[in-house]
């Protein structure tokens, strides 16, 4: 298996007349935590949603573990839409954690985690619940299994959402600004869970404004600007001086999110 976890080729995305991603080429390494950073409107969330196939790219292809996602390039270079069954198979290797948690409000924490195990994977309830409890334990929320989302704090809801994604045993986990809706005192618990996952060797792609987290947990940093990959490297390559002027400018607006320590003269 020599494929990268995700390979993106000449990916563009337009909404009407406005092109928000301009020919992105990017490879995401297996077993690593890759952080997508960049100013608002740089296209990082759109890129992540294209990888999740929640948005369809306008041109270009995405390969997940060597398998085309959604579209395949034909012999004549034209894109061919793949049958739904193949799309579903490829997507089943991808889990997603959303900014707004998106827990289903009418199900308990455990119900959220076991729902797809029962309805999609066809497990019997007892087995699904055993697996679900194991995932809740992993995010430290075993005791809250019977609580409904409305009874959980934002940080707890996001950890349940992570457990829900993990229960399906994905190869790749995508995080779309997972702490952006959280009060500052609750971001730590979510970032800690993510740090543990990274140490366990999970392939993760994280869109985040938490520069401190990106610099310490991220193994690769991708800096997007105006819909293009401007920089792509390890944290030390990117953050150590001499730094790209756009990156410095960006970091200066995020001093309170852990960017200050990167900017202070060493």
């Amino acid at each position, binding site marked *: 298996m020599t494929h990268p976890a995700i390979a993106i080729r000449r990916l563009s995305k337009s909404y009407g007349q406005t092109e928000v991603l301009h020919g992105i080429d990017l490879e995401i390494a297996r077993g690593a935590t890759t952080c997508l950073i960049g100013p608002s409107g740089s296209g990082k969330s759109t890129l992540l949603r294209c990888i*999740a196939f*929640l948005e369809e790219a306008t041109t270009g292809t995405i390969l997940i573990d060597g398998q085309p996602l959604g579209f395949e390039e034909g012999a004549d270079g034209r894109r061919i839409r793949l049958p739904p069954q193949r799309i*579903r198979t490829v*997507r*089943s290797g*991808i*889990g*997603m954690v*959303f900014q*707004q948690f*998106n*827990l*289903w*409000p*009418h*199900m308990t924490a455990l119900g959220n985690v076991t*729902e*797809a195990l029962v*309805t*999609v994977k066809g497990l019997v309830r007892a087995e699904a619940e055993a697996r679900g409890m194991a995932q809740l334990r992993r995010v430290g929320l075993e005791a809250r299994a019977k609580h*409904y*989302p*409305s*009874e*959980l704090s934002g940080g707890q*809801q996001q950890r349940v*959402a992570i457990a*829900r*994604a993990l229960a*399906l045993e994905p190869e790749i986990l995508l995080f779309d600004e997972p702490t952006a809706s959280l009060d500052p005192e609750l971001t730590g618990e979510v970032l800690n869970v993510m740090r543990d996952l990274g140490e366990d060797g999970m392939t993760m792609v994280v869109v985040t404004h938490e520069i401190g987290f990106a610099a310490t947990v991220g193994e690769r940093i991708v800096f997007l600007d105006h819909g293009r990959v401007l920089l792509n490297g390890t944290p030390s390559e990117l953050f150590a001086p001499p730094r790209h002027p756009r990156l410095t400018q960006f970091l200066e607006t995020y001093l309170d999110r852990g960017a200050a320590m990167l900017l202070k003269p060493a």
Partner: protein
Amino acid sequence: MTAQLFELMLKAAGYTVVISAASIAIGLVIGILVCAAKLSPRPWLRWPASLFVSFFRGVPLLVQLLLIYNLLPAIGLTVPSIVAALIGLSLCTAAYQAENLRGGFQSVPRGLLEAADMAGLSPWQQFSRIRAPIALRLTVPALVNEAILILKASSLISVVGVIELTRTAQNLAASTYEPLLFYSVAGGLYLAINWLVAAGGSLTERALRRGRLA
């Protein structure tokens, strides 16, 4: 008023409740279909559904009832007045319930469906496991409200000759020359029924509170 007459009024109130409940139930089924048609991407489904909703919400129930009561025999269908009344009430409440349901379905946040999509749920599973249960919960208060409206509106079927609570009060008022008494008792019974329905609605909402949108 004798105990015997009061019992008559109570029975009539029971009939009013049964007719209203049946109309609400039939109206819910039709309302679901109309709502589905209105949310459909196909214009030939959307368009008639919109017309249905607009007509039955735009015409007084009394006129609808008179129309159905007279139209059915005119096209060769002779049915008892209770059937005409049930059709009228059901179609009218269906139009309102379709709109309530549409509001509920459109209030389900998109992200919850994206999460279901990412978890691999099929479109039908997304609908039946996530979208519909959440939308129905959001619709409960409107449904309770609609039940009370229909209980009150059912008084109009007295006009097409159904002997429900209002018609019974009317008959007794005419034969005893005591309109104040019998209309007041009828009013009190409607009030009591509506309070019970409202209380039942509050209990249901409280039971569903834990599963509300955070």
